[in-house]
C-alpha cells in the first residue's frame, strides 16, 4: 500500500485557519453590532448573515462564484489589486469556507456580547473610557469564553467545507483539493484506504474541537 498523500489535509488546515481569522474579526464585529446597537434592519442583517447556515452549499457556492468570478465585482477588484484571480485558487477556498463558517461565529458572538451585563460597560464609560477601550478592556474579556467557543465552531465548520469550496475553488490536486474534496475524489476513484485515512483524521480533528468547545462553555457555566 502506497503512503497516503496528506497534502489535502495540510491545505485544509491552512484554509480553515485563515478563514477562521477572517471569520473571527468579522464575526465579533457583527456580533457586537447586533447585540449592542439599535439600527434599522438589524434583524434583517442577522438573517442575511445566517443564510449560509440553512441554504444548500451549492447555492452559497453559486452566489460566491457570481461575486468572486472574473466578471463579478469582488473578483474584478481583487484582480485589479493583485493581478491574480480568486476563483479556482486556494484563496477562493478560504473565502468559501469563511462564508460558510461566518454564521456560527456571528450567532455565538452576538449571544456572548449580549450576555455581558451593560452595567460593566456603563461603569467603564463613567470612568472616562472611550467606546473602543470599553470594548477592548471590558466587553471583549467578559465575552471571551463564548467568543473562543464560536471561533472553534467556525474552525471546525471551515475544516469540513465541501460544496461551496468545490464550486468556487474546484478540485485541483495539490492546489485546491482540500481534505473533504480529496475524500470524495478517492472514493469516486476506488481508493478506499486513502479515503478512510483522511476520514479518520478529519473526524478525530472535528471531535477534538467540539470536545474542547463543550469543555470551555461548561467551564463558563461553573464560574
Amino acid at each position, binding site marked *: 500500500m502506497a503512503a497516503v498523500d496528506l497534502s489535502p489535509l495540510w491545505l485544509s488546515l491552512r484554509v480553515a485557519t485563515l478563514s477562521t481569522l477572517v471569520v473571527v474579526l468579522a464575526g465579533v464585529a457583527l456580533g457586537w453590532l447586533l447585540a449592542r446597537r439599535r439600527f434599522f434592519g438589524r434583524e434583517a442583517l442577522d438573517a442575511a448573515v445566517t443564510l449560509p447556515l440553512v441554504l444548500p452549499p451549492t447555492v452559497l457556492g453559486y452566489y460566491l462564484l457570481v461575486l468572486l468570478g472574473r466578471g463579478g465585482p469582488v473578483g474584478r477588484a481583487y484582480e485589479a489589486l493583485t493581478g491574480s484571480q480568486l476563483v479556482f485558487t486556494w484563496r477562493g477556498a478560504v473565502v468559501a469556507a469563511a462564508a460558510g463558517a461566518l454564521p456560527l461565529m456571528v450567532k455565538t458572538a452576538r449571544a456572548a456580547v449580549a450576555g455581558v451585563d451593560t452595567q460593566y460597560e456603563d461603569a467603564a464609560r463613567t*470612568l472616562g*473610557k472611550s467606546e473602543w477601550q470599553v470594548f477592548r478592556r471590558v466587553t471583549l474579556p467578559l465575552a471571551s469564553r463564548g467568543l473562543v467557543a464560536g471561533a472553534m465552531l467556525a474552525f471546525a465548520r471551515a475544516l469540513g467545507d465541501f460544496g461551496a469550496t468545490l464550486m468556487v475553488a474546484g478540485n485541483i490536486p495539490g492546489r485546491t483539493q482540500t481534505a473533504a474534496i480529496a475524500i470524495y475524489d478517492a472514493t469516486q476513484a476506488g481508493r478506499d484506504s486513502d479515503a478512510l485515512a483522511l476520514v479518520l483524521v478529519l473526524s478525530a480533528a472535528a471531535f477534538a474541537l467540539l470536545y474542547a468547545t463543550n469543555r470551555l462553555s461548561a467551564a463558563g457555566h461553573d464560574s
Partner: protein
Amino acid sequence: MLEVRLRKRLGPEFTLDVDFAAPPGVTVLFGASGSGKTLTLRAVAGLLKPDEGRMSADGRVLFDSDKGIDVPVARRRVGYLFQDLALFPHMTALENVEFAAGDVPRAERRGRAMSLLERLGVAHAAGRRPREVSGGEAQRVALARSLAASPRVLLLDEPLSALDEPVRLRIIPDLKELNEELRLPVLYVTHSRDEALLLGGRAVIYERGRIAAEGPPEELFAAPASETVARLTGVENIFDGVVIARDDAAGTMAVELKGAGGAACRVEVPLGRAGEGARVRVAVRSGDILIAAEEPRGLSARNVLRGRVSSVEERSAHTLVRVESGVTWAASVTRHALEELALAPGREVWLAFKTYSCRVYE
C-alpha cells in the same frame, strides 16, 4: 457645585421633573423606590438623556437641551458608584482601580491606585478578584475606583444597602471624612432614614418623580412638611380623624381619631385651619411618645392615653412597642426601658405626648 434641572417622561404615569443644586458635601436623595432617585443619577452621569433641562458641574455644562449640548458619559468626569458596584469581575481590585486611573504611565497609575486602596483601608485586598472580597471591601474598592478617575461629582446609589449594619455604620464616618478632604458635590441615594441622618448635609426628598421637600435631614425628619414626607421619613403614627372642637384662645383643637371597628381615640393637637367636623390626618413620631407603667400625674403633656401593649418589635437601634388605645400607637423605647417597665403584650400602660408633638395635615 452641581446644578440639576431636568424633565424626562418615562411613560404615561411617570415623569421625572426635578430642579435642585448640590453644593460640595453630601446631598441625600431620599424617597421610596421608584420615585426617580436612581434615574436622576443616571441622567447626571449621561446614561439617561432628559427630554429637556440643564445640568452643570463646577460651572461646566454637562447637558443643555436649549443649546443642544449633551456631553458624552466618558467626558463628564462624574464618578458613579452603582448599587451593585459593577466591579469588573475579570480584574483584581488593584486592576479595577488602575483601569480608572487614566492615561498616565503604568507605574504612576499603579501607585495612585495603591494609595487610594490604602486610603480606603482595603490595600490587603489589592490582588483579589471582586468575588473573593467581602461586601464591605468591595464597596471600598468600588469607591476607590470612582475616585481614581478624578471625578468632579460623585454619585452614590444606595451604596450601603447590601451591607450588614455594623459594616455600614463603620463606612459612613469614613465617607464623611473623605469628603471633607475632597469637597466634591456628592449625590447619595438612600431610603434609609438612619443613613440620611448620619450623613447630615442636605436632603432632597423625592416623591413620584418630583421634589417634595429639601433641607437639612434632621429638620425634614423632625417636622415633616407634608403627610407624604412624614410617611417617607418614617413617622410611624399617622391616623385619620375629625375635628371635634376648636379652642382659639388656647391655640389647640380636639381631634377624634378613628380606629378599627368603630373604636376611637381623642387627642389634643395644635390649632390648624380646619373647622369643626373637618377631616384631618394626625401624625406623631414614635420617638415623641412616652410610655408609663402607671397613670402619670402632673405632666405638661396634654395627651395621656390608657392602653394595652399589643406587640413588641425589636429593631436594630430601638424597640417599637405597639399599644392599643382606640387606635394602634407605635412608641419607641430603649432596651433598658423595655426591661424596667416589663413591657410585654397584654400589659396595661399609659401613653403621653405633647400637643405640639402632633402634626396635623388637612
